């Protein structure tokens, strides 16, 4: 199979080809999705080198165990983002990463006192439609999701950071996600 034909394959078909050890299929998946997952890893880790390591691990995982992806359960990009996010959060919570972040945060602009604040400056914004969906969130929901998803904090830690009860944080995350889904559905980005 020439390389051109891989461009035409669906994501699910590419994963089948990866299962047959077709390196070009993995490369096509990389072309399509690496930027999305690298962007996420960078935002969570605040560290390009660590983000690069995570991306490599995600693609090697896909190469070794392509059968873990079930096309009936969701899109390949969502699956890769889940792998990326989990791995990034594991690193955030590990000793070494914590030390590195503290060092990094110590050298940051004195006006910023934590990596979380830096991330907030970037915000949840990716595109105009996403921007609108996010702007519809009450501040409490947005903050909770921001700290949990991009900060890599557990909901208990988020509760501590925000000075809110754990139950409140849990439900804000859940209702924030539902609210964003509603907003994104209205613009046609997801099904309702």
């Amino acid at each position, binding site marked *: 199979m020439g390389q051109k034909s891989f461009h035409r394959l669906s994501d699910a078909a590419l994963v089948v080809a990866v299962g047959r050890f077709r390196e070009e299929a993995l490369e096509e998946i990389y072309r399509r999705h*690496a*930027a999305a997952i690298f962007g996420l890893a960078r935002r969570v880790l605040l560290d390009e080198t660590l983000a690069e390591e995570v991306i490599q691990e995600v693609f090697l995982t896909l190469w070794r165990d392509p059968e873990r992806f*079930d*096309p009936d359960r969701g899109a390949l990009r969502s699956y890769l*983002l889940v792998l990326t996010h989990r791995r990034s959060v594991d690193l955030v919570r590990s000793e070494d990463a914590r030390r590195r972040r503290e060092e990094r945060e110590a050298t940051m602009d004195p006006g910023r006192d934590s990596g979380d604040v830096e991330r907030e400056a970037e915000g949840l914004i990716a595109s105009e439609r996403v921007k609108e969906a996010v702007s519809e969130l009450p501040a409490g929901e947005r903050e909770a999701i921001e700290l949990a998803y991009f900060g890599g904090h557990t*909901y*208990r830690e988020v509760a501590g950071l925000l000075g809110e009860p754990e139950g409140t944080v849990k439900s804000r995350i859940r209702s924030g996600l539902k609210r964003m889904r509603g907003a994104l559905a209205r613009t046609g980005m997801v099904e309702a």
Partner: protein
Amino acid sequence: MSLEHEEIEGLLGAYALDAVDDPDRHEIERHLESCPVCRTEVSRHREVAALVSGPEQPPPDHVWERIRARLEDSREVLASAPVVRRPRPGSQRLAAALAAAALVAVGFLGWRVVELEGRIERGGSVLAAAEAALADPDGRRLVLRSDDAALAADVVLLPDGTGYLFQNNLEPLSADRTYQLWAMVGERPISAAVLGSDPEVTAFRVGEGTGALAITEERAGGVQAPTSDPIATASLS
């Protein structure tokens, strides 16, 4: 420490964002194996998270080169594409057994042959796992049967409780109905899987103390407890 369904529901948003502690995570994942409603919610949250995952940024060029170099290390070159999925590395016995398993699947209830072959091509992970389970020497084959023995559903069960439904001659239902598989723990039915209106190869899990399996017909999406007598059953004892 076991969480109630409501408590688990409340955690689904945090879980979808990887924002729960490990003990909670294990509880939730155990629950998700048998709760399609919660699985759907998690999947929906993840879709939203994927969309707000931030601006894309292409990685530096050397990242792909490094991946490629590591692929070379684990490479197994195949001259042509196999019909059956590759076996797990280091398992020659399994490779031979998988070939045998394909023959078993083909021989039983022959009208399923064409569909099975088509499904192999889709790279379905469940089919590959079911094939592996069939070949597993510790796997246990069971047949759920109706009282008059006219209906049958073939199942393989592994010692850790994972199982796969594969061959069956259950009548396809209308889209608003579904078959549902139950694990009987004593008299208590615990939902093991929602099988759909025309069951294909399906993975499920049963817990300790399961004495029997049963299939009922329910409304689409599945229910918390069976609403009618089973269509087919099999005893594990």
